[in-house]
């Protein structure tokens, strides 16, 4: 289409800025219509550079379309719609406005043809998401500050890298690279921080759960998946990413097993899901890259279902800890069913979206003869079922009877959950819908007898393991220390350690200083005070004597 009009991301950003200006029904219409309009605009973007101009001697291409861009932009727009629907009853225009600006920036990154555009919208995303975190109130203020600090660090690394890259190559174009120069390493580091990669993964489970019940729905979708997108575009086949991804997968699983807070548990699940995608990007074969892209698409959908159900529970009960919840299936049946669909999907059960997408990544590892990687990915699939697929629904909706009898949430929240749960099943039953959106043609058949049996055995026996070890898995009122201790706990620990010696030293220092000042004042007083030598009334004669003496000395000096 030649008469291209509006960049889709900017349309959504504009809608976000409009949100605080309208109220009531008009706002609801805006929240639902803007993402759909954006979706339509996304599908009007043809292949190739659509919009470009020169700015300070650099070529800027804010809109460049291809299948991968459209895939990510599409799911971002669908997610903005789902988030908008879920948040219709959230009476906080700041949060909704920031969330739409954040989503629009994610779409803009997906269409960015040059590194400068990537950076600009990367930073707007950081600002928008920080505001969304802040709107959680309470502890979210401090968590949001820590979140912003980490993302500003990531932004600085990215900007330094981009500046170096443009300086070295003279081109602003965003294309596939290998980390073979300092600038490219910096770009990679900036991207990885947003993906939730080690060692800074802790920003994600620290900040997201503190957002409001609606805010986390947006947060879970955009930052990590935009990072996956830029890694797919910028660093496909970078071997290091296999190991970074595997670390993230197991980090997420192990920390989630130990976690008591259901929203932090889901945050760890987001890291571990992103880990699958990152390792797929590292494997770098066509099927693995397709798998990473498809997995990003479906994981946004099922993470949304899971985060929405946790948000609904938080909204209805005000609680988010395994130890405080349980038995909610009685009065929240719809939320419970949606959570189970999302849980089955994240675990890649046959007939769900996870099954048709995620299994392409281990297939890629097997095709490349990466046996250890394949085995670890299989173990991780079992682990995902364990921590997200069973632990989450079991502790919230079954387990013990907590005595809580909340109803299902308001209609719009139910509608959003049901819609996304429907997507989970629909894509699982008709994988062609998803495969048609991918950038390379898919030569992969998910539903073979061997694959279905393999997956069922893996998952059902992991489920068996869960119930056999239930006693071991009892949630405790604890958190698990992470890298964020270095910026949250270290200072305080040092303070505690040195408090006694430090305060003694300070007291001695203060005492000495005080005495020195007192001594100084006493000297001044002695000389200048009422009795001081310099404050006496001198007789006129003595002055005449001294002047005579001075003149005499001057005369002698003059003749000498």
């Amino acid at each position, binding site marked *: 289409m030649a008469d291209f009009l509006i960049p889709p991301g900017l349309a959504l950003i504009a809608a976000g800025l409009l949100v605080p200006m309208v109220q009531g029904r008009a706002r609801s219409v805006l929240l639902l219509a803007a993402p759909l309009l954006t979706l339509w605009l996304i599908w009007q973007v043809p292949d190739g550079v659509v919009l470009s101009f020169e700015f300070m001697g650099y070529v800027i291409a804010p809109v460049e379309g291809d299948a991968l861009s459209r895939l990510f932009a599409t799911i971002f727009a669908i997610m903005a719609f789902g988030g908008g629907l879920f948040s219709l009853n959230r009476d906080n225009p700041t949060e909704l406005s920031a969330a739409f600006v954040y989503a629009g920036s994610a779409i803009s990154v997906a269409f960015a043809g040059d590194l400068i555009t990537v950076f600009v919208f990367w930073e707007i995303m950081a600002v928008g998401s920080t505001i969304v975190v802040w709107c959680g109130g309470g502890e979210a203020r401090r968590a949001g500050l820590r979140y912003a600090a980490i993302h500003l660090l990531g932004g600085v690394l990215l900007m330094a890298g981009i500046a170096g890259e443009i300086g070295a190559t003279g081109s602003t174009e965003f294309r596939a690279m290998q980390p073979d120069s300092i600038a490219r390493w910096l770009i990679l580091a900036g991207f990885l921080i947003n993906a939730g990669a080690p060692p800074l993964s802790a920003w994600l489970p620290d900040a997201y759960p503190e957002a409001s019940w609606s805010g986390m729905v947006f947060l879970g979708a955009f930052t990590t998946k935009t990072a996956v997108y830029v890694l797919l575009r910028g660093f496909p086949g970078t071997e290091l990413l296999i190991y970074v991804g595997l670390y993230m997968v*197991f980090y997420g*699983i*192990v920390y989630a*097993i*130990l976690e*008591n*807070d259901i929203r932090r548990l889901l945050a760890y699940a987001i890291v571990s899901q992103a880990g699958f995608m990152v390792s797929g990007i590292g494997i770098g074969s066509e099927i693995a890259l397709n798998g990473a892209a498809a997995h990003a698409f479906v994981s946004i959908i099922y993470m949304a279902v899971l985060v929405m159900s946790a948000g609904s529970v938080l909204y*209805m*009960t*005000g609680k988010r800890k395994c130890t405080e919840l349980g*038995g909610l*299936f*009685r009065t929240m049946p719809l939320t419970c069913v949606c959570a189970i669909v999302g849980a089955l999907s994240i675990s890649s059960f046959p007939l769900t979206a996870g099954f048709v997408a995620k299994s392409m990544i281990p297939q890629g590892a*097997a095709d490349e*003869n990466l*046996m250890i990687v*394949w*085995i670890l990915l*299989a*173990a991780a699939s*079992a*682990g995902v079922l*364990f921590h997200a697929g069973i632990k989450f629904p079991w502790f919230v909706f*079954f387990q013990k*009877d907590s*005595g*809580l*009898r*909340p*109803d299902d949430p308001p209609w719009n929240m139910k509608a959003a959950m049901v819609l996304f749960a429907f997507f989970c099943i629909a894509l699982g039953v008709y994988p062609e819908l998803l495969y048609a959106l991918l950038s390379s043609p898919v030569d992969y058949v998910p539903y*073979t*007898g*061997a694959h*279905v*049996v*393999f*997956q*069922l*055995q*893996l*998952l*059902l*026996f*992991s*489920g*068996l*393991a*869960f119930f056999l*070890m239930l006693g*071991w*898995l009892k949630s*405790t*009122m*604890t*958190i*698990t*220390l*992470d890298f964020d201790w270095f910026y*949250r*706990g270290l200072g305080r620990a040092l303070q505690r350690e040195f408090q006694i010696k430090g305060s003694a030293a300070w007291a001695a220092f203060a005492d000495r200083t005080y005495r020195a000042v007192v001594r100084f004042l006493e000297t001044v007083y002695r000389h200048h005070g009422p009795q001081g030598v310099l404050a006496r009334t001198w007789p006129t004669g003595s002055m005449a004597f001294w002047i005579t003496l001075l003149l005499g000395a001057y005369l002698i000096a003059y003749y000498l």
Partner: protein
Amino acid sequence: MAKVKSNGDDHWLARPENIRLVWWLFIAVLVATVLSDLAVEHKPKFGIDGTFGFAAWFGLLSCVALVAFAKALGAILKRPDTFYDG
């Protein structure tokens, strides 16, 4: 947000005899999935994945290993959830 005291085995899913039934069903399904290994054609890639019921024992052992590792890590790194407060 109504908080009503549970009146015993209110829901059919909460009754012990039904829980026992669910367990038996679950075990039957587990056995069925392992046996269906015989019915499908496998193309093992690495050898180990061609063993009988590979995914079943591998899934079970992976989870045991993950939980054991998590517990060990937790013993070192767990803190009360008020650790960072105040």
